């Protein structure tokens, strides 16, 4: 039994309700990567969606920029416990992109330049929950933070917001991506602390 200190505890601070459990605020924007930063030429950049039946659609950078673009202001939560509130992004909503495909699939695997993958339920990419984002804080997204474009799924831990995203493969069944094979949770909800297996 720990030694109780007389009178201690009267000044304790309430936990911040804006933060998921176990998280705390940062003003920085730390970089956490599984490998080196890929450098992708905009002339070569493509974003594609492949359905579970093999149908494919893809956009070049010009085609992508011609799609409806949204401003996104949101909080982001990293599994390493930092949270950044009020971040600003610009990107194309996954709702817009998914209009171009027909699919009954329930899951998606995001693929990135460099080989990174992460899996997300498809209905968590719809209805205003996900974007392919290419601007952060008013500037083009820099390569260290996932530029030219990254997936942005702020309601899940930020490892699901795949940097250097190049496309989605839609799947009938859930499959683990890179970190999910290495101990991280298949779903990754910060509000219920789904960090690890």
């Amino acid at each position: 039994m720990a030694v109780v200190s007389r009178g201690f505890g009267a000044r304790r601070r309430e936990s911040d309700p804006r933060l998921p459990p176990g998280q705390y605020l940062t003003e920085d924007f730390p970089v956490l990567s599984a490998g080196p930063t890929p450098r992708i030429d905009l002339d070569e950049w493509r974003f594609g969606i492949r359905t579970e039946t093999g149908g494919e659609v893809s956009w070049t950078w010009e085609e992508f920029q011609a799609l409806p673009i949204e401003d996104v202001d949101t909080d982001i939560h990293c599994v390493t416990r930092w949270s950044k509130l009020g971040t600003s992004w610009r990107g194309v909503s996954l709702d817009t992109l998914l209009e171009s495909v027909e699919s009954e699939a329930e899951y998606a695997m995001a693929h990135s330049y460099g080989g990174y993958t992460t899996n997300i339920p498809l209905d968590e990419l719809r209805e205003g929950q996900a974007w392919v984002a290419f601007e952060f804080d008013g500037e083009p997204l820099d390569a260290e933070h996932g530029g030219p474009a990254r997936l942005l799924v702020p309601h899940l831990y930020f490892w699901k917001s795949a940097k250097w995203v190049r496309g989605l493969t839609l799947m009938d069944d859930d499959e683990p991506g890179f970190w999910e094979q290495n101990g991280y949770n298949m779903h990754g909800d910060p509000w219920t602390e789904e960090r690890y297996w």
Partner: protein
Amino acid sequence: MTVGGWQPARVIEAVGATPSARLLHLQVPGWPGNDAGQHVDIRLTAEDGYQAVRSYSIGSYGPGETIELAVDEIPDGEVSPYLVRDVLPGDELEVKGPLGGYFVWRPGGAAPVQLIAGGSGIVPLMAMVRAATDAGAAPSVRLLYSVRSAEDAIYRDELAQAATDGGVGLTWRYTRAAPDGWTGHVGRVDDDVLRAAVWEPGREPIFFVCGPTGFVEHVADALVGLGHPSARIRTERFGGA
């Protein structure tokens, strides 16, 4: 032995040091002694089991069962106001330590030593001043102490006395208000201050810089800019501004 490294400790003395800081003397039965520069983690447990842990540098060094901490109150803090305002002799808490094998000074080195303190960063450096003085090494140690004003300087009297007794070379830097009779400038530590106060690069000093994170990083960067190798600069950041 102790469970999980936490040892019971008792406050035996609490003395005001500045308007916002207090010196606490803790008796820690079985304390193994500590090197100059080490710290302890303090754990406080409330009646309902709520706990908080904070780190504090030890101002004392050497053998014995009594250690000295100097706690500066942080506004809206959870622990420091308790330690500065509420704690009384006889109160109990838990300590873990001594901790820290990197930011320590032991006698026997050949290089001159430069200590640079920002505010409450003086505490581990005071242990080094005391250890160096007792070891007869004071002539090769300098201290640059940056504080808002003279009344905010923890250990002010002891340092001033040591300076007149031919102890460590002491340079004060007042960032907001200087004492009466001060003929120097007032303001933050800058390159000119460092150049004037610090052992020159040719002497190959080793540095111990301690204080708020921003202060430490500014000073460390400036020292490198003035020609001191970063490998000879040891730092300890206290958080806050």
